[in-house]
């Protein structure tokens, strides 16, 4: 499934993925995946666990060989130019790969040496991150909080001044404050010219990316700017509130023009099949229906679809879901 507005193709693209496929036994982990990332772009791969994000990262970091298709990182082929790529990418795998029995400084020093550099040589690039954890440089990595581990792991991935950074679910298991700080750091790295590819299972983090690719079951559902993704939603969408959520859900699902009903934070998102009708008219019809069924406190308003709405509509009746 292509996207309506892919960024212009360029030979200078630091990452070009073309028709990548990879299968593990019965599982098609990647199915015809194509993306192109621009220099100094913060590109997000957004999708649930098992969507193929980690497999894609492992192919791009030369850890796996694709079954089909091709990919170039910094103009180098991920199969043929394995060693050149390895010297120039930074990679942070899904779990923070640190040595818990080594101190903050020892971890960083080790990863610097592995890439033939030192903390001092890499200091200018890691400074904004490392300064936050440097007061704890003698503390063992195992005794750090999630947020500090995350920053240390990022420092380790950056210390050799890579030309492109791959971060696989860097914000999983980290509290909201640390997550926000982490995304701020990624933005300042991007401003300095670094290309960053980051994956996340959390839809709300997609807004922090320049462009995102939505991934599910090894396929790309859509690739676009976060703001443009919502426009792909095919139906008028409404937010519905009321105290009896269970009754609201049941009633809305049985409504004559119901396309989908999902809980969405404190409200419900209801979409209607009548795409050519005035949304405010639909809203008042739905409100009347709910009031008639005894839910007098129900409020219905027309809303703009977000990334998560689009993701769910693109997923359709994907196979992992169970009929409720």
């Amino acid at each position: 499934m292509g996207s309506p507005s892919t960024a212009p193709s360029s030979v200078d693209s630091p990452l070009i993925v073309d028709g990548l496929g990879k299968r593990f036994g019965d599982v098609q982990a990647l199915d015809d995946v194509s993306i192109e990332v621009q220099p100094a772009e913060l590109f997000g791969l957004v999708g649930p666990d098992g969507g193929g994000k980690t497999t894609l990262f492992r192919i791009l970091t030369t850890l796996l060989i694709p079954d089909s298709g091709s990919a170039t990182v910094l103009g180098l082929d991920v199969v043929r130019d394995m060693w050149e790529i390895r010297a120039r990418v930074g990679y942070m795998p899904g779990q923070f790969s640190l040595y818990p029995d080594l101190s903050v400084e020892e971890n960083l020093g080790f990863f610097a040496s592995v890439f033939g550099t030192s903390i001092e040589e890499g200091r200018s690039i890691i400074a904004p991150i490392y300064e936050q954890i440097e007061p704890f440089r003698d503390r063992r990595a195992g005794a750090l909080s999630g947020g500090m581990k995350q920053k240390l792991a990022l420092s380790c991935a950056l210390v050799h001044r890579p030309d492109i950074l791959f971060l696989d679910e860097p914000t999983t298991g980290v509290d909201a404050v640390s997550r926000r700080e982490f995304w701020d750091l990624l933005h300042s790295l991007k401003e300095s010219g670094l290309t960053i590819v980051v994956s996340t299972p959390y839809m709300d983090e997609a807004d922090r990316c320049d462009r995102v690719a939505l991934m599910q079951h090894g396929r790309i559902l859509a690739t676009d700017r976060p703001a443009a993704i919502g426009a792909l939603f095919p139906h008028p969408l409404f937010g519905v509130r009321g105290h009896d959520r269970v009754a609201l859900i049941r009633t809305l699902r049985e409504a004559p023009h119901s396309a989908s009903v999902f809980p969405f934070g404190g409200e419900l998102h209801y979409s209607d099949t009548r795409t050519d009708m005035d949304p405010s008219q639909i809203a008042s019809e739905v409100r009347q229906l709910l009031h008639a069924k005894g839910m007098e406190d129900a409020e219905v308003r027309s809303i703009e679809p977000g990334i998560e709405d689009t993701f769910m509509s693109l997923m359709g009746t994907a196979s992992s879901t169970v009929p409720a």
Partner: protein
Amino acid sequence: MSNAIEVQELTRKFGSFTAVNAITFTVGSGEVFGFLGANGAGKTTAIRMLTGLLAPTSGEAQVAGFDVFTQAEEVKRKIGYMSQRFSLYGDLTVRENIALYGGIYGLDDGEIRERSEAMLGHLGLRDSGDDLVASLPLGWKQKLAFSVALVHQPAVVFLDEPTGGVDPVTRRQFWEMIYAAAADGTTVFVTTHYMDEAEYCDRVSIMVDGRIGAMGTPAELKAEFKVGTLDELFVRLARPAGNATVAGGGG
């Protein structure tokens, strides 16, 4: 009994460090209550006290009508627990997991059989009852884990970051299951790092440095603190409270 959880001045110290500092709150029966806080804010310690795993230093707490300090065993029988990290045994089948937890909570074979079938039917897992849990997709695992946590019909169920990593549709289905359980009178106590998940709760509290920094319905809190999202509120409360980047002792 109107309140499933009643906590007064609950405190826990580790040496000179006060992990939980005189917190007071109540959770009503059938309420979905979000319990939030940064790493190290004292969330884990508070939950361990509420589930009878850790004795309070001072203060009182009743869960399902029992005192967590003097009646920890009764409390444990009346609560269910589900964590994203660990709940079900991947190397056992779906039915074996249900039978295990049913057995742990003292259900007899007949009840286990009956509830297993009802649960599998409800989850649409009837054909997968003899599959290893490890072979199920993550979303099914999470929903199954939640159902298993309810197998002994507890008064209160504790959920630790229940929907991490699952796809958005499954996540909604999961929350519908939570709402259905709450509508049946089960109290649901949710902890999570993800503020959009907190928006699903009837009421939330945010712990900051061992105290409750804010409590109310998501709408009330957003109005009170004049913020657009709970995420903003969380960051505002947690950041001055000390660098959240620093590890807290014992959580």
